[in-house]
């Protein structure tokens, strides 16, 4: 069974802080993704990665960066947290690069509050 683990369930940070959200998957998946979930907006893609050290912008990359130094780990970085980045952050991974037929497997999410 695929396991995607996000290091924190809840985080509270102050405006201007640098924030790291960590995600690890244990199934040797090529693709990894960061989404945020907001009421009425669904899940929106921030960044994704299809290989180690490779990254692509999603639909809402502003204010975020990512790092993928190892295949199993994908980190989301908020360089200077702002209150509009208060959200539920969801990490996901999938097999089969380029086909889209392998479902995304999600972690349980990190609820980030920026005050």
């Amino acid at each position, binding site marked *: 069974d695929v396991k*995607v683990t996000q290091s924190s*369930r809840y985080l509270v940070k102050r405006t201007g802080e640098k924030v790291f959200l960590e995600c690890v998957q244990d199934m040797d998946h090529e*693709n990894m*993704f960061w*989404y945020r979930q907001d009421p*009425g*907006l*669904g*899940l*929106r*893609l921030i960044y*994704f990665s*299809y290989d180690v050290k490779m990254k*692509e912008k*999603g*639909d809402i990359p502003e204010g975020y960066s990512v790092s993928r130094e190892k295949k199993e780990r994908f980190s989301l970085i908020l360089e200077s947290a702002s209150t509009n980045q208060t959200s539920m952050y*969801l990490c*996901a991974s*999938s097999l*089969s*690069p*380029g*086909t*889209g*037929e*392998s*479902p*995304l*497997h*999600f*972690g*349980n*999410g990190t609820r980030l509050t920026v005050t």
Partner: protein
Amino acid sequence: DQQVKQNSPSLSVQEGRISILNCDYTNSMFDYFLWYKKYPAEGPTFLISISSIKDKNEDGRFTVFLNKSAKHLSLHIVPSQPGDSAVYFCAASARATSYGKLTFGQGTILTVHP
């Protein structure tokens, strides 16, 4: 612009009846569609999918219908059970260009009453 839309924020159904959740999309490049279910404090879990070469896919109580000409898909749950109460997200993919990334709708909260 919202390329995948779920226009009903919520749906309430009696146990044993049919639940129908709807989804519309605008991008003609989408050729693979999925439904995810999400309980509070958990990540979304994959439910069922359909390729654009089909118009129906069934898995137990769950059936997804695709109408390409209308750019519309729906998820039918028969019979509905209280444990089906969750948020349901529709998602779409353009397989040739996407590296597997999905575009999601806003979600529909389904409540099944005993």
